[in-house]
Each structure stands twice: as structure tokens, then as C-alpha cells.
């Protein structure tokens, strides 16, 4: 039982360490979007992200964030109508915002032109630390040891005999 507790503690610490380390790979999507064309990039998201969209030239874009199932459906049908995007920003030229509370997994960032003209764009997605998708499981792994320690301390305190003034008998 003690081995299991120490194992969970070790796993929890490892997860916490990894959740606060910045990823070496940058998430970005850029270039030009032609009319009747989808530009997509698939990235693994493990927590909150900061999205920065800049559209150059005279144009604007529609930006969608799709989960893996919807992205697979998009590649299969080439149609966004049936998709249920996690985030959709229509007719955008400049956009900066935080996106949070989405489950960990593979996501597709999809861009199409909003008008019938070519649009040059640059999208940067930055992972915000700590990455909650890893940090929260780490906390969950730490809970058994934390609970055990608290119960051990409280058991020790409650077991110590005290008089009516709250002083220990020793």
C-alpha cells in the first residue's frame, strides 16, 4: 500500500513538472488562403492557448477550431456545414484572445477566406502554462498521499488527550 502511495506521488510530481515546462514545438499556421480552399493544421492541445490572428492584404478570414472527429469528417466530406466547431471566428482581420477549458486531444485549426479574394494570414497559438490537461491529473495523483498525510496528522491530534482548556496532558 505504501509503495502504491509513493508511486502515485512520484507520478503526480512528474505530471506537475511536465505541465509547467514550455513546449519546444510552436503552433502556427500561416501563408495565403485562396477562395474555395481550406488551410488546416492539426495540433495537440493539452490546456489553455493564446490565439493571435493577423490578416495581411485586403481580406479577412474565417477561423475554426475543430475537434478530431469533426476534422476527420471535414477531410472526408470537404464540407464544414455538418461540423460543430469548438471555436469559430468569422470575418476576422485581427484577433487576440485566450481559449481555455477544452479537453486534451488532437485539434484542427481551419482557415478559409471570408470573401472571394486571396487573403494572407498569420496565426500563432501559444500554450499557456500550466497546461491544465496535465496539471489537473497531476493534482489528482497527489491527492491520495495528501489525504493520507492529513488524516494521519488529524488522527494524531485527535488521539492526543487534552484537558478542558485544550492543553495536552503532557
Amino acid at each position, binding site marked *: 500500500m505504501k509503495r502504491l502511495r509513493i508511486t502515485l506521488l512520484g507520478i503526480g510530481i512528474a505530471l506537475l513538472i511536465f505541465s509547467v515546462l514550455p513546449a519546444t514545438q510552436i503552433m502556427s499556421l500561416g501563408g495565403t488562403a485562396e477562395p474555395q480552399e481550406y488551410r488546416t493544421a492539426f495540433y495537440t492541445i493539452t490546456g489553455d492557448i493564446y490565439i493571435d490572428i493577423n490578416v495581411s492584404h485586403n481580406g479577412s478570414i474565417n477561423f475554426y477550431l475543430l475537434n478530431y472527429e469533426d476534422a476527420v469528417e471535414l477531410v472526408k466530406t470537404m464540407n464544414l456545414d455538418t461540423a460543430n466547431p469548438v471555436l469559430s471566428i468569422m470575418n476576422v482581420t485581427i484577433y487576440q484572445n485566450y481559449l481555455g477549458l477544452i479537453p486534451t486531444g*488532437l485539434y484542427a485549426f481551419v482557415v478559409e477566406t471570408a470573401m472571394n479574394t486571396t487573403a494572407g494570414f498569420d496565426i500563432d497559438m501559444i500554450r499557456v502554462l500550466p497546461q491544465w490537461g496535465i496539471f489537473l491529473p497531476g493534482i489528482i495523483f497527489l491527492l491520495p498521499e495528501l489525504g493520507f498525510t492529513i488524516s494521519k496528522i488529524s488522527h494524531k491530534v485527535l488521539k492526543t488527550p487534552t484537558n478542558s482548556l485544550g492543553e495536552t496532558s503532557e
Partner: protein
Amino acid sequence: MSRLSDFKALLRFEFSTSYRQPGLEFLVALILLFSAFGVSSSAFQSLSVRFSPDFLVHYPDLFADFLSAVKRLGVVSLVAGIKSVYYILVFLIPMFSAFTIASSIENGSLAALISYPVSRRSALLVRVLFPIVFLGASTFICSLIWVGIFLPGVIDLGFYLFAFVLTFTAIMFIFLINSLIAILSKRASVSVVGGFVLGMVFLQLGYMSDTTLAGVLDPFTLLVSILTISNYELGFFDIIASMCIQVSLSIILLVVQLKIFNRMEVL
């Protein structure tokens, strides 16, 4: 049946004496952390697709190729995770074998163990087989957990089985070489230094040499490089050949160790 129960009792005894906590538990945490670095280095890379609705007319295999690319991303991520842990294990295994085998011979605890009605063969096998199984299973499971977290739903069972076997053969080969050094040297310090030097030579030669030798010394780097080429199925011959060489050499190493240990003066 009694031999098996004796072996199990010996394993239980070793588990509570030679492998005292929290060493093994923190080793699992370390393996989990390093596998995370490896898996994320591959899984966090992008898969970019540029298409328009009329693409399907000109390129009907787009969907199949896309699914294949996603599956390959999962496979490369798993191997990258195992590779990352393997680089650490090459230097951790000498310490493992030094403290469980060479140190026990040096301080006489192995002599005390075999003074009980325990066969020498069982005593050595417990100290060799348990770490191989433990390190192999931890490495594979930790990498698989990260692939499951980063790329849920991306599964290639056949390849995962292949990676599982490859992990065990590679770790078994490295561990048996180090345990041979430990038995021959009978000193923990010599065993650690010898294993370290051998680990550095292994990784350097694996990086520089041709495919079959590289597959024996550092199979995961070779596998990652094979998986990145377009017709990667052809490269699997080198990996399977190196696996067979590793298994053959491991069997020879184990037999040699058992023979040396049976004749060794440890008292």
C-alpha cells in the same frame, strides 16, 4: 511446481530487500517524465493539410492518406517516447546492475542469500529478470499513456505490439551486458564506470554505424528514421534482423552469466 513457488518466494523476498522503496517508485516517475518529453516532441508537431472541395476528384485517396498520416504520427510519438527513455536507461541500467548484482557480491549479501537452500541460478535470474520486466513494462506503458493523452483515438495495435517486443529485447540486451560486467568485475564502482563507458560507445556507434549495427545498438533511432520515409515497410527488415541478433546475443549472455555465476567463489 515447487520450483516455481520457490522462485516466487525468492522474488517476493528480493522485492522487499534489494528493491526497497522509494527507488523503484521514483524510477517510474522519472521514466514517465522522460517519456513525456519524447512523446511530446513528436505529438506536438503539426500535420498540415491544404485542400479544396474539388481535391477529392483529383485526389481520391486523400482521406485514406490523412488517416494513415495520423496513425503514423501516433506510432512515431510512441517510439520517440521509448527512445527518450532508452537514452536514460542506457546510463541508469549500469547503476541498477551494479547495486543489485556487483554490490551484493562485494558486500557479501549475495553470499548470505545463497547460503540458504536457494539455487544460484534462481538467485541470479531473479536479479536479472525482474529489472528487465520492470524497466521494459514501465517504459512501454508510460509512453503509451502519453500517446493516449496527446493523441486519443489514434490506435495501431499491430505496431504497438511490435514496439512492445522491441522495447523488451533492447532493454534485455543492455541489461544482460551490464550484468555480465557486474559479475565479472564483482565491484559496484567498476560496474558503473564500465556500463557508463559502454553506454556512450553504444549510442555513438548506433548513431554513426550502418543500419543493422545501428539497429542492434540503438534500435529506436533507426525505427524513427525508418518511419519518416514514405515506403517505411521496407526498412522493417533491418529492425527485425537487429531484434533477432539482440535476442540471440541475450540468450548467449544469459547462459554465459549463469555458468560463470555457478562456478564463482562468492563466499
